[in-house]
């Protein structure tokens, strides 16, 4: 049993309305010094040790992320 974390973020050139809305809200919370926010998805998977990198990559690429507009990173831990 291992914990694998996959973080999915929009490609840098893709508009992120959510992140922009958060930046806007920060003003109202008067929190200063946060210049940019990008919002993505965070997945925590429980996987048997049998599952190899390749499978996880395929899974991330087909199910967790939309490769047309998103990138992803995989972390074991």
């Amino acid at each position, binding site marked *: 049993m291992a914990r694998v974390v996959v973080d999915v973020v929009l490609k840098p050139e893709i508009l992120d*309305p*959510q992140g922009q*809305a*958060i930046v*806007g*809200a920060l003003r*109202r*919370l008067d929190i200063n010094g946060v210049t940019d926010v990008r*919002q993505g998805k965070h997945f925590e998977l429980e996987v048997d040790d049998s599952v190899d990198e390749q499978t996880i990559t395929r899974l991330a690429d087909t199910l967790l992320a939309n490769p047309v507009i998103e990138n992803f990173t995989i972390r074991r831990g």
Partner: protein
Amino acid sequence: MPPRIGVVTFPGSLDDRDAARAVRFAGAEAVPLWHADTSLHDVEAVILPGGFSYGDYLRAGAIARFSPVMESVIAAANDGLPVLGICNGFQVLCEAHLLPGALQGNAARRFVCKEQLLRIENTATPWTSGYRPGQEVVIPIKNMDGCYVADERTLDELESSGRVVARYLDGNPNGSYRDIAGVCNAAGNVVGLMPHPEHAIDALTGPGTDGLGFFLSFTGVAA
């Protein structure tokens, strides 16, 4: 002098005009309240309407909760001002911690728009006093994040203290825990409701007139 009910408009509010129309249908005066304006213009009640305030980005209601007008609404609600949050308004009230629990994405992970059967379970609030206890009504529901969730303790307490205001019947449209469609605060003056009573005030444009009771309940009391 008809009672004056404030209807808040946040950027992205959608059902504010409909809520105002319903207020007028019920014989009250609808007072527009702007999100950036802290004054409540001494209204006798406030409605937080449906919509996608700030696009519902981040979480539904999460950003609207910090609007200037909400500071005043929160203060007034804690002093007993009747407040009705409909759909996005319900989400804002939960985010503002005026109501327990939270609203999550629908279990089916799709927007759902349908005519929904409900049972009114608490008729002691200023928004439901016009209904018979256990009355069954048909009211449209339309939301993306309508799944009411809370921890077991909170749910048990809501049930035992009769704070479940309305419950879904024959089919739970969004996976809400214990089929909860609406709840109120301990004092009963703040009510949050996922379905849209303002869209059930006229058989021409909705399933019927079952929703009018929420507005008449208030005007009936105040008038």
